[in-house]
């Protein structure tokens, strides 16, 4: 699977990556508020380590999601008693997660079907 990197080209591929990163962030927050580092680790855990989320793509994505109104953030304390910003899903964010999860499923299904069809001679 794709690795996201902060210095990726601004091409169509990064759009795909950006889109998948954003939905993964929403998914990571579905079980409760997390701070930035926590989100990165949760995403890695969710994808079985296939996605390594770097700070250079995580924070811009968080920023975009917050500005878009899908996330809310407030200051709190991390497990190590450090100041950290905790993000949680807004109602809008939950709606988007549901909607895009459905869409992703359909796309994944269609792709799997297409790719597993026997090749014609």
């Amino acid at each position, binding site marked *: 699977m794709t690795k996201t990197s902060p210095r990726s080209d601004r091409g169509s591929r990064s759009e795909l990556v950006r889109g998948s990163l954003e939905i993964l962030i929403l998914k990571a927050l579905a079980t409760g508020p997390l701070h930035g580092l926590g989100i990165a680790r949760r995403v890695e855990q969710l994808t079985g380590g296939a996605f390594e989320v770097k*700070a*250079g793509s995580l924070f811009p994505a968080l920023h975009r999601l917050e500005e878009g109104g899908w996330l809310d953030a407030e200051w709190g304390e991390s497990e190590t008693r450090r100041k950290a910003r905790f993000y949680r899903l807004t109602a809008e964010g939950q709606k988007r997660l549901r909607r895009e999860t459905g869409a992703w499923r359909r796309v994944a299904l269609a792709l799997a079907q297409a790719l597993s069809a026997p090749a014609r001679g």
Partner: protein
Amino acid sequence: MGHARRLARLLRNLLRGAEVDRELDRELDGVLETLTDEGIARGLSPDEARRAAAIALGGAEQVKEEVRAARTGALLDAFLRDLRYGARVLRRSTGFTAVAVLTLALGIGAATSIFSVVRAVLLSPLPYREPDRLVLLRQAWPQRGLNFWRLSQANFSAYRDDAKAFDAIGAYTHTGYNVGAGGESFRVDAAAVSADLFATLGVEAALGRTFVRGEDAPGRRLLVVLSHGEWQRRFGGEPGIVGTTLLLDGVPAEIVGVMPRGFTFPDSSVGLWTPLEIAPDRTSPFMLLAVARLKPGTGPAAAEKETTGLLRARAAAHAGFAGANAPPAAGADLHTVVRPLRDALTASTRTPLLLLFAAVGLVLLIVCANVANLVLARSGGRAREIAVRFALGATRGRIARQVLTELLLLGVLGGAGGSLLALPILGMARRLPAGFVPRLEEVRLDPVVFGVALCAGALAAIVAGLVPALRLGRDGAAIDRASARSTAAPRGRRLNGGLVGVQFALSLLLLAGTGLMLKSLDRLLSVDPGFETDHLVTLNLDLPPRQAGAYANPHAPVTGAETAGTERYYSRVLEAMRAQPGVRNAALAQSLPFGGDLDADMTVCEGREAGADGAAGSLTLIQRTTPGYFSTLRLPLLRGRDFEEPDRIGASPVAIVDETLARLAWPGQDAVGRRIRFAWDDRPEAWKTIVGVVGPVRDDRLDRGAEPHLYLPFLQEPMRRMSLVARTEIEPDLAAAGIQQALRTVDPSVPPFALRSMEATVRLSLFQRRLTNGLLGAFAAVALLLAAAGIYGVMSLEVSSRFKEIAVRLALGARPAAVVGMVLRRGARLAAAGMGAGLAGAFALMRLLSGMLYEVRPDDPAILLAVVALLGSVALLACAIPARRAVRVDPIAALRED
């Protein structure tokens, strides 16, 4: 997300960007600390843990940059940051900024001024309804030398009644009135207009009404419409003025209306309008111009074709329709000329204005080249700064954007400065004497021009700086090379040299054009008008007709009962002048030399009755004069005698011709004793016997050759409107007041007007040319200065970038003279290449000036040589300073530098 929310974000990010950045800092700090804590917990030392954490985060600055880019309004925010950074950079390098902004302001100020004038005079629509459909109609008969021929009332009536091309048509002619009575009377310039003229223009009165159809029929009572300015000046803007009566030439005239503010027709000197009598059967004089509104979809060419057909058909059928005593033969080339009104009204200014526009365009290009050179020269010095920003992770696009923002800022500053410069220039332009540049009162620094100036400034700076900026952004290696001080970037120097070449080429064009124009003016000033122009006071007098409402043709002698009164008045004027202290002698003439309103008519010389096209006569300037006119002007009487008191009505008709006419009519023979008459008067008693021949004069325009003149005795053909010419013993300006006072005493109801010295009149006749030359000279001086600054800058850069090489040469024993020679040769090569291109351009382009040159060829070798010499010496001078610096190089210091 909703628009309102998006906007709120944008505002928050823009207004509280610093706070948002601080939050991000705190958040990233937190992440860094957490990662460090975890490292320590894994057993790393605190230092190792911190390093590992920083690597894992991947550069806090880059993360911040990425987040900023993701923000709403990121582009605008980046732009604002670039702007602040640019302002800081510009503030830091005060010298560069000052020179660049001043240069830009100079170029843009000049361009804005000229563009404002071009826009107001040539481009903006006339202040009438649907002005694009308005045309000016006049006539021409080239075979007769009548290239600008006005219409008779009969001509006008024919076009009005029969032409299908027009929705409406009106006629007008300039005139003037002695307004008021007794000692209160003053002179007002006016236009007599046919009743339909205002309707044709599509302009209503602001107060009352304009004229209605039928009010231009002969024998109607006199009416008047005032201009807004005249209403304010003379009547204090009194709203009750409509319906009251004004005395025009002693005749009561009802004020029927006041025109709106800003309405002028045909020019701003006109203060009131009166109805022009139109009698369809009156075939002379030819003193009208017509304004017509084309039917939608009809072009001037079609209208010209139709009216020409009408003119030829009528002229062939009716004697006198075309002015001659017999219908012109078939195939005569008489025709109408139909031109868009705006072009016709501004024709005299079009060429000089376009010339100035081209010149100012050249100046702007030179300014661009100069700014490009400045930016380029500085880019060497900035290379280190930019290399550092590269190293810190800025992208090429980011740096190019930054440099462009800086240039944009420079351009806007220059544009603003230019506008500040243009404002006083335009103020001065509006105060120029009226009548020399039409529509000048409409000139102002309008918002559009201001915007254009700002854009021009930004564009000029960006175009100027684009090449260097792109090179910086494109090529990191170039920066590395440039940042090492001793190795110059050769490509930069080539570009610098090229820009200097362009400056020299353009400057040469501008200087050559200016030189040609100045030489033309010089030639004109040395033209001998044929008489002595110093110590002459001139003024106009207009004796009103005795009979109220009678049709008065200002170009025809008075007849019948009026002759005695006219003669009596003017003989009293001359008597008063004889008694006037400070006046040596004085005489009267029908019109003033260089006054622009000389009378012309077709004349027939005895023995040469048949003209070129079968119709008789040739075009001659007519002056009716009193005895003593030639001695007052010191116009030499070559043969025969002047007019004398006995040459009166009833005595046999006499005439005097000038040498030009005598040579044309009777080459190699004595004209005295020959006879001459007007072409339209073929009665046997119309012949006038020539009693004298005077020297040739150029009293119309200095740039026209001497034209044939016919002088007739005022006492045989008295005119109402005459010009007084008085030769004074003291300075004419000192004598003027006394002369005016004396004339008021003769008859207070006849106010003298257009009072000025003959020298002032001659100066005014060259005014437009002087103004054009003055501006051209200023532009050329700016171009020269910028070219000098350009080559100086480049050679300075060259010398300082080759300090090391020069030091080595000197250390190895090169003579200082050889080093100076090396620098000068390089400068001379640059200048010579530019001037070569400029000369080629001059040979190709100066032909366009031919129409404006007087007795100077467009490739005048003296001018071109002088310009090359001037530019060459300026180039050498500008190179001499860096060359001197070069030989003062201290070899040890220069070699130690790196």
